[in-house]
């Protein structure tokens, strides 16, 4: 809501700078988003009369005027050509400060002196009009300050009105609010007009959809001349409030809307056939609206029609039919209240938001109709010479009455945490328009119908609190009567993120929705069903919910590459989403659960099925290109399977790995991660084809993804006894077929259950010249230790047992030397 301060001052007296007023409003009521200034901020604008007007001697596009400012004649250089000798114009004198902060000085323009400036409407803040100098009529007296007629400068507060306060969408409501804040009075001019002409009753009014239209009033005004411009001050205010002047009738309806918050529509009465019908749209009904677009309507939409055709989509926008134009002489003025939710839905379905719909959808006070109708009648009569009908057609079957809400002062003190005086509370609420009866720590508060947000005690307590001032609320620090803390799972997640960061990965947070190619390029399309889809994505590129964290991280890696990175390691912890199909016939229960929180046919049905969504928390890492740059004494570290696997081994110390192909992973470099036989996730190198489609071609890319439930980044330690007897270290190199898995060899060694074998380490795997074709050499290091010093024989014997086992199981031959 844009609040021109000169307008506000018409209703309420205040002695505050715009900045102070904005601060006060922000601290007591609604936030002020900004302050805008128009016209002349400081200085003088005088009515002048042009005495001479002619071409500038040295410039084709400039003119030189001599202007009488009331006894003093000054020379002014002007660009605009429209003034003429005898014309009255506003002249701003040197030394004045304009809205942009510029100070006007005496100047010489191409050799000619210029002592001031003749002003356009835009320069005075009256309208956007800037094609020429504003010409004033003869009622403006030469030499008098223009501000005697209308403000030459304007300051506008931009209020960010909360949706529960439709009363603040009008200047009167804002004035009432300010008066309540300042604890002062405000006054609104009474509408006055002379009913003199044709009765409205010549037309009929029929409301066929009362459930969508609590009130509908209609009055006829005859003999209007809308072709005339509205008075300058009225147009100036409409402009300052952010609307565009149109013609005298429309301007009057807009002005009253800005004043009261109540949208008003005027029909060309000559075009209305029979009378006004308020009805639901017919199926398939079409309407060509004021913006030139033809829209299809449906039965959920309310239409204002005559007996033959639709004239307006109620509360949203009018049709071209029956629009008030320059030839209109008779108007029917509509002031009505519609069901807010219906207007909101209609406006959403038509994708058409207007000043009117924005106000109606918040739910307006039907009792405002009377004042607004009288006020707009008054204005139309005064500004267009119209003659109002003596009668109003009114449909208002269930008048809204003020309601009573009790307020207990101890309750107010409890919620606000500060003392609240009975007298003060009563006075504050009266300032808002309530009637208050006090007594015995209780207030009986009667709420005016324009404050539909005040229905409960807590609502009133808020009003008292903010008007007394929230800075008076003292600070206190309650402590929970419980031990706080993170759950073991939450602690684990922290440790996991910390660990990955310490291991050199950078934590990313990426969007969980992406394009179709996420599924397609990972080769998942055929494998699993369609991903969950957003109904209204921001773009087609962001419509699918991820079922793995991988594609977002690959996109990030590709972006980093395009910025010149040579590689990098990213990780993310985040949710992934799977569609879940519930059993047959579940839909009805699902919708009840989703809309009303009710459980299914029995409590056994997991909410996951009622949701139709399986959501789980994953951790994933992507290593791409050079993961760690070379140092002067260390080689660079490229991404690879074992880099990624090493990370998984740190995150889940007891994990085992089995080869497993996945469409998006390298078929020979991919494994499923198992924890006690359960699948915890996967690790592998990304398939070159997938890497290519993510614009990572030519880079090594390795990745992993784990269910965080399986992660154990900081396992609970358990002490094991150790001895001081020195350990014996022995190496053993064996040759096996190249497809023998080392992991299985290690498992065999472990299966020996040797009492003295403390540790086994793989320190070399080699294929090549020293090893026969199709074979590989695996070098193992064993640490033997016992409680007493081991003899050479004992160690030898155990090593022989190991090699025998490897020979039996894998045909391993011990390499000599």
């Amino acid at each position, binding site marked *: 809501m844009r609040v021109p301060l000169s307008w506000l001052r018409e209703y309420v007296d205040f002695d505050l700078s715009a900045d102070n007023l904005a601060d006060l409003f*922000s601290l007591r009521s609604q*936030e002020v988003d900004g302050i805008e200034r128009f016209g002349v901020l400081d200085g003088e604008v005088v009515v002048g009369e042009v005495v001479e007007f002619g071409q500038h001697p040295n410039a084709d596009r400039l003119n030189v005027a001599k202007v009488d400012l009331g006894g003093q004649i000054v020379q002014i250089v002007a660009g605009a050509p429209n003034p003429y000798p005898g014309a009255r114009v506003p002249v701003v004198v040197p030394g004045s400060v304009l809205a942009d902060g510029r100070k006007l000085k005496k100047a010489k323009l191409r050799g000619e002196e210029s002592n001031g400036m003749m002003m356009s409407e835009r320069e005075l803040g009256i309208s956007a009009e800037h094609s020429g100098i504003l010409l004033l009529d003869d009622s403006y007296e030469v030499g008098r300050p223009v501000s005697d007629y209308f403000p030459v400068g304007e300051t506008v507060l931009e209020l960010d009105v909360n*949706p529960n*306060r439709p009363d603040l969408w009008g200047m009167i409501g804002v004035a009432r609010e300010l008066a309540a804040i300042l604890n002062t009075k405000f006054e609104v001019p009474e509408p006055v007009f002379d009913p003199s002409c044709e009765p409205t009753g010549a037309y009929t009014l029929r409301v066929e959809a009362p459930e969508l239209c609590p009130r509908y009033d209609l009055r006829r005004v005859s003999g209007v001349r809308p072709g005339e411009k509205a008075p300058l001050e009225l147009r100036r205010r409409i402009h300052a409030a952010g609307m565009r002047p149109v013609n005298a009738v429309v301007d009057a309806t807009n002005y009253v809307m800005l004043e009261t918050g109540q949208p008003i529509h005027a029909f060309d009465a000559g075009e209305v056939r029979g009378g006004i019908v308020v009805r639901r749209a017919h199926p398939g009904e079409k309407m060509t609206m004021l913006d030139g677009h033809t829209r299809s309507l449906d039965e959920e939409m309310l239409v204002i029609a005559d007996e033959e055709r639709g004239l307006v989509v109620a509360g949203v926008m009018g049709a071209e039919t029956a629009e008030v134009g320059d030839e209109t002489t008779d108007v029917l003025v509509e002031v009505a209240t519609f069901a807010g939710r219906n207007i*909101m839905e209609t406006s959403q379905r038509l994708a058409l938001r207007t000043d009117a719909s924005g106000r109606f*959808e918040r739910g307006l006070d039907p009792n405002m109709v009377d004042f607004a109708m009288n006020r707009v009648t008054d204005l139309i009569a005064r500004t267009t010479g119209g003659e109002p009908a003596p009668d109003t057609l009114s449909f208002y079957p269930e008048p809204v009455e003020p309601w009573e809400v009790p307020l207990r002062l101890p309750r107010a003190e*409890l*919620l*606000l*945490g*500060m003392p609240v005086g009975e007298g003060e509370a009563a006075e504050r609420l009266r300032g808002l328009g309530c009637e208050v009866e006090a007594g015995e720590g209780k207030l009986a508060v009667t709420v005016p119908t324009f404050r539909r947000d005040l229905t409960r005690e807590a609502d009133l*307590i*808020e009003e008292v609190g903010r008007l007394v001032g*929230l800075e008076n*609320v*003292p*600070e*206190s*620090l*309650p402590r*929970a009567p*419980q031990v*706080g803390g*993170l*759950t073991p799972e*939450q602690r684990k997640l922290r440790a996991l993120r*910390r660990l*990955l*960061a*310490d291991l050199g*990965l*950078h*934590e*990313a*947070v*990426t969007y*969980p*929705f992406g394009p179709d190619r996420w599924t397609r390029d990972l080769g998942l399309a055929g494998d699993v069903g369609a991903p*969950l889809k*957003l109904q*209204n994505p*921001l773009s087609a590129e962001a419509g699918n919910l991820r079922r793995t964290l991988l594609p*977002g991280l690959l996109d*990030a890696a590709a*972006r*980093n590459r395009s*910025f010149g990175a040579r590689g990098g390691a*990213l990780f993310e912890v*985040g*949710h992934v*989403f799977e569609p879940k199909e519930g059993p047959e016939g579940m839909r009805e229960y699902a*919708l009840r659960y*989703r809309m*009303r*929180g009710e459980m299914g046919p029995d409590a056994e049905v997991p909410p996951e099925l009622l*949701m*139709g969504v399986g*959501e789980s928390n994953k951790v994933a890492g992507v290593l791409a290109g050079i993961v760690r740059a070379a*140092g002067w004494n*260390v080689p660079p570290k490229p991404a690879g399977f074992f880099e990624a696997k090493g990370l998984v081994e740190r995150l889940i110390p007891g994990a085992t790995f089995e080869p497993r192909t996945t469409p998006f992973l390298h078929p020979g470099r991919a494994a499923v991660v198992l924890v006690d036989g359960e699948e915890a996730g996967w690790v592998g190198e990304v398939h070159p084809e997938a890497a290519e489609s993510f614009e990572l071609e030519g880079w090594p890319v390795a990745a992993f993804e784990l269910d965080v439930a399986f992660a154990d980044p900081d396992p609970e330690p358990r002490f094991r006894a150790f001895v001081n007897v020195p350990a014996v270290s022995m190496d053993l190199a064996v040759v096996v077929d190249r497809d023998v898995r080392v992991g299985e060899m290690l498992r065999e060694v472990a299966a020996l259950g040797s009492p003295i074998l403390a540790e086994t380490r793989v320190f070399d795997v080699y294929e090549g010249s020293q090893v026969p074709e199709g074979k590989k050499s695996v070098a193992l290091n064993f640490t033997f230790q016992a409680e007493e010093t081991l003899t050479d024989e004992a160690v030898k014997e155990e090593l022989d047992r190991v090699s025998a086992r490897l020979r039996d199981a894998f045909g391993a031959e011990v390499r000599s030397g």
Partner: protein
Amino acid sequence: MSVVERIEELKTEALSALADAGTTKDLESARVRYLGRSADLTEIKKGIRDLPPDDRKAVGGASNRATKEIEAALAERLAEVAVSEREERLRAEAVDVTLPGVPYPKGSLHPSLRIIDEVVDFFVGLGYRVAEGPEVETDYYNFTALNIPPGHPARGMQDTFFLDDGLVLRTHTSPVQVRTMLSQEPPVYIVCPGRTYRRDSDPTHTPMFNQIEGLAVDKGLTLGDLKGTLAAMARHVFGEDVKVRLRPSYFQFVEPGVELDVSCFVCGGSDPNCKVCKGAGWIEMLGAGMVDPAVLSEAGYDPEEYTGFAFGMGPDRMAMVRYGIPDLRLFFEGDLRFLQQF
């Protein structure tokens, strides 16, 4: 020349050779030459028994003294040379200490999550627990249970992503509060961090953002408790000197509703061109309020017996303020040039 004189001569020669020897190796050859098995002095000692008895004592005494003296000098020189040799070796081992050390890997934690961790730690210290919930939410938990029934204008304020009928991407973490209240009796003290979604994309809005909401429901909780708790939180995150102020505001699930501003911790309001507060002296930090009685009732709590406060803040924006990040969009692009700064 008498034998004794010869011994004296050898001793002098040996001492001088030892004095000249500069390395352990030179000293070793001097030792072999003067004390070794075939050294002259050794030969003389071996010949003592062949000497006439009268000479034996003199020669024996002289040779022993000479041997001792040479050995003493040798030991002394060995020690000296060892010291200088070690010094020499250490000099040779000097490295360019300005070369970089071995590059241990250095990763980073996301700035928003750093803030979340800090805020969570603060509340845990006050006895709060951390509650979490799904990101795909039902219409009921995301709106209706929070006093925002279908058709309510407040729904229009939150540009919502819709999925299948009745499902949305949560627009705030408030549904977690509802779920918590429905599953336990008061008192409740929780914070709910997490990702939230709104259909909005411009320089200051991203369709996904992080939120931390909190809820305290107990007997006798007041707006003063809310103010004191959040003021302490602000001081924890932004420094001991910051002040807070409350402004009235509107959120459907609280009444009274407030917004909390934090005094600018950079300029304190003294710099009209301050980049952080834009000269206002205050930074909008969070929305909060006393839990609406309708929300308490919906959860099965008696609003006459219990009161509570709730609050919600944006850790992304807090990170922008705290770390001086100019653009929200940087947070969600996985750009290493950004991430590795944290």
